[in-house]
């Protein structure tokens, strides 16, 4: 395997992805990611000098609309999906650590 994923790298990826992995998951993730990156390295066989990266097949641009109040938010329905709510607001755990 050409790509060796270090503990530091997988730790960093866990932070970016907001995932906490068990020891077993972590070892598996290192192996899986290493293999995938080995495979993705195949792209380096291609000379892409001067090729523009293509994010979308068609040219896309932002679509704008007027920012108008429509009263169509359906607050009650939306809040019904919330894991925890209080006084028409979402409740979250402590944002600051003690």
């Amino acid at each position, binding site marked *: 395997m050409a790509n060796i994923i270090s503990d530091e790298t997988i730790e960093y990826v866990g932070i970016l992805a907001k995932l906490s*992995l068990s020891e077993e998951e972590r070892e598996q993730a290192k192996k899986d990611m290493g293999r*995938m*990156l080995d495979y993705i390295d195949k792209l380096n066989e291609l000379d892409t000098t001067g090729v523009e990266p293509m994010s*979308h097949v*068609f040219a896309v641009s932002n679509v704008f609309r007027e920012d108008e109040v429509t009263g169509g938010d359906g607050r009650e329905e939306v809040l019904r999906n919330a894991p925890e709510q209080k006084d028409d607001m979402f409740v979250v755990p402590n944002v600051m650590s003690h």
Partner: protein
Amino acid sequence: MELLSLSAVELGAAIGTGKATAVEAMEAVLGRIAEAEEELHCYITIDKEKALERAQSVQRRIEAGELTGPLAGVPMAIKDNLCTEGMLTTCASRILGNFVPTYTAQAVQNMERAGAVIIGKTNMDEFAMGSTTETSAYGITRNPYGREHVPGGSSGGSAAAVAARECFFALGSDTGGSIRQPASHCGVVGMKPTYGTVSRFGLIAYGSSLDQVGPLCRTVEDCAVILGILAADSQDGSQGDSRIEDGMGRQAVGEKPQNQEIFGAESHSPDSGLNAGQGIRQKTGQNAGQKAGGQAVRKDSTYLGRKDIDFTSALKKDVRGMRIGIPRDYFGQGLDGEVRRAVLAAAECLRENGAAVEEFDLSLAEYAIPAYYTIAAAEASSNLERFDGIKYGYRAADAEELHQMYKKTRSQGFGPEVKRRIMLGSFVLSSGYYDAYYLKALRVKAMIKKAFDDAFARYDCILGPVAPATAPKLGESLDDPLKMYLGDIYTISVNLAGLPAISVPCGADKNGLPIGLQLIGDCFAEKKILQAAYTYEQLKKA
């Protein structure tokens, strides 16, 4: 009348002429579900009572002359990554196990306005990540043609439901083959349209630059009819039911379709993408100005609002003079012998009936998989950031502070394949690796698109297999993710290049498992592949 043996269009005609009712059709489907569903498990959610109520309501509107479209009264199944107002939408994930959307996806709305009736929500790979429907948090689906085999994926529940007659047609989504491959494995027709043809509003995003909604159904005719309804601009009453209402419940009848100048794909040129973009800007700009506070504006910035969507005009049994290219790269190592023979026999059938069929080198096919998995994982890692346990879905119970809650919620809520792709995506987008992996993949994507452009300068259609083999056995795919990814080799470049492609049944292997034929068209050339597919289907039937 044996309703279950009818195609969606045949059933619609029977209902339209009073030979059957929407309620009888729904009862027939629910009866079939009662027999088969326990073993097959095509659906995650079915609400029989509500389905019958909806059918009754539609039947009343048919009898009142309000619903006259070709699919009015026809029961349909919806992949569980399309939002349905008031109906559980899980994406086959634990993290959305209790999510009840407050709105309905545009594609589903279009079908409902045309009178199709929702039966329930179908099983799929979690967040559409997988090729077997085995990554679902809610159990496996079995292949109706071989109970020990997978139905394919990720729209496996939709494909199996069509094949098992637990619905008359289904909606799926295709990011890397997720409509075409299960259609192939279950012996039904499945189509992914040109990127931007169907609005993605309400489709829970996986890889936004690749995702498209499309039909899984029994016949090519059904496919053309459904696609025409799916693609219709909801602000334009020309398709589906004639009494389309806008989002605020007002009748839009008699209003002229606005903005006639918008994108007409019939006249597309190499820079049609640019035209499309301009068309969208003009259109939404006008809407915003003209219809203050009322009519909804377009909700998917990549939706093209195509006008060339009379797809049924392509249902002609004629391939004389059609130029069909067979990529040699698609018939090399790794292709099962029986699949190869069935697909080449289909090509021969079209040749005998007047198509000019020849082999050519498409090139770059082997680079599509690594490019795809880089791009799809990158987009997935970004799209799935929204699942944080705050506004909806699962929340881990025992977290003391916010950041810990995010991590616990996501770690407990997502399955292994989803985590794998989120981590890979986070890595390829991270500083220091972005250029080497993500931008490199986007450059390769541009080269793949160019290879298809060159091919379509010479051919009307590209013909090949959908998958390297028929449906694998249950439990054999998930141990080796890379091997599973390799099974997507013939479908994923189509998504990278934004092309339309259809999967049509073309035989079975020695175990009776279906084999699919794939026809790929240039952007906006759905009609060519529909015509070739229809011709093949009719020739095979004869």
